[in-house]
């Protein structure tokens, strides 16, 4: 047990030493660079750049195994992000919308245009305070009144919007002709081509969309046994869904990789200065 404590102490010393070293080198580096903004700012910016780099490495250390440095960085992140959202929300919506409608003295103090006293704005104020009562386990049940307003608004807004744009519009988007600028069988084969903007590609595309949507809906249809024609249609449906998942898979891999490229660019360029 003792020597593992000693190893972690050594690691800690090495980390702090490299941190100070990197800070000093970065400070000189910034001081020497053409657009330096004075000694104090170089030291401060060098400190911040090094902090950001060490926090990045602390999170990457999770890849080796869960360790105290990762826990430090992760706990710091949880604390900072909670406070960040609180502050921006406070200034933008509480001061920006609530205060101008309930008190003129506060409005002048915060320099926001006073809109006159609107009693209806006390409804969200009271419900908001009630929501905070959830923190006390004894009188927590009253917080459900505020939760009710949130659930009511979300449901009321979602019901019509999803029905209109995700159901009705998607159905009308699928009213597509299965024979694109059709001039008869002769012309269709006479200038037949596989070019991506050709008539064949467009027609095939419309067929795939129609069959894909129709069979996809059959796959998610639960009121009829998937046997016979219905069974084959639902199997075609699952094949189309598999292509859809394949596409999402490809895009997700692309997305995750570019996040890593972004972080490594920071480390190589802003911190180590290996690339311009």
């Amino acid at each position, binding site marked *: 047990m003792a020597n593992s404590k000693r190893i972690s102490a050594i690691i800690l010393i090495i980390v702090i030493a490299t941190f100070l070293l990197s800070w000093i080198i970065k400070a000189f580096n910034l001081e020497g660079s053409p657009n330096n903004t004075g000694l104090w700012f170089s030291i401060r910016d060098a400190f911040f750049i090094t902090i950001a780099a060490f926090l990045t490495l602390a999170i990457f250390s999770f890849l080796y195994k869960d360790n105290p440095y990762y826990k430090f960085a992760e706990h710091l992140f949880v604390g900072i992000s*909670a406070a960040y959202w609180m502050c921006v929300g406070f200034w933008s919506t509480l001061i920006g919308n609530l205060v101008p409608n309930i008190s003129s003295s506060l409005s002048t103090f915060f320099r926001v245009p006073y809109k006159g006293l609107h009693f209806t704005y006390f409804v969200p104020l009271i419900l908001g305070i009630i929501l905070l009562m959830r923190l006390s386990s004894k009188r927590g049940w009253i917080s459900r009144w505020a939760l009710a*307003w949130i659930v009511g608004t*979300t449901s009321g807004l979602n019901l019509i919007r999803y029905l209109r744009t995700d159901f009705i519009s998607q159905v009308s988007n699928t009213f597509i002709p299965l024979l694109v600028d059709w001039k008869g069988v002769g012309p269709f084969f006479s200038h037949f081509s596989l070019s991506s903007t050709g008539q064949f590609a467009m027609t095939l595309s419309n067929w795939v969309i129609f069959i894909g949507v129709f069979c996809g809906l059959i796959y998610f249809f639960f009121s009829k046994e998937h046997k016979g024609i219905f069974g084959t249609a639902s199997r075609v449906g699952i094949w189309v869904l598999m292509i859809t998942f394949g596409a999402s898979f490809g*895009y997700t891999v692309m997305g995750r990789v570019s996040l890593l490229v972004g972080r490594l660019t920071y480390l190589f360029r802003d911190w180590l200065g290996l690339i311009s």
Partner: protein
Amino acid sequence: MKKQVPLTITFIVGVVLILSVFFPPVETWGEDFSLFFDIIAVFAFFLGGGNLIRVHTERIAKKKKDWGFSIITILGFLIMLAAGLFKLWNPGDISADVAATGSLFQLLYDWMFNPLGATMYSLLAFYVASASYRAFRAKNRDATILLIAAFIILLGRTPLGMYATGWIPESFSVLQIPNLAIWVMTSPNLAGQRAIMIGIALGVVAMSLRLILGVERTYLGMDID
């Protein structure tokens, strides 16, 4: 009493917001109810912060596992909160943008919040790679179709696809990998996503209806015990 009042609030708010679409005079009410929802949403941020403080102070008080790191969470939280609420180092006056350049709030965002958040998610690139090597198998027909489609997209979404199949003449240009990737996205993917979207839309309509009419109450029953 404990259940009746919330159910009526949900019913009234839900119905007013639905009517505000169909009856223009009710639209003003719809705007106000949405605005009140936005203000309550900020109190929900405060609830999140309060919860965080409660959990971590409790962990420190009871010396639970990793209680030392809870101090870091609380410290980070308080420093950021002070920087934001008092607009420390903020060039402007009290009504200035909380994230104005040069303010401590913006510095902490740029140099701590941003690297931590970005790096946390960039870990996934490593996990995607290791999962690709160890877990993604063409075990059955469905998984095979999935992996083939993924290949076309992965190749088509990078210049590699163009170099590999750039030579194919225009009259067969559908077979060029980048065009094939575009076709996969705008036909089968579009059809599959649309079928899923219609399914989810009907699910949202049904669930919203159950919540407004009070048939669905699990969000209420959560903390009775």
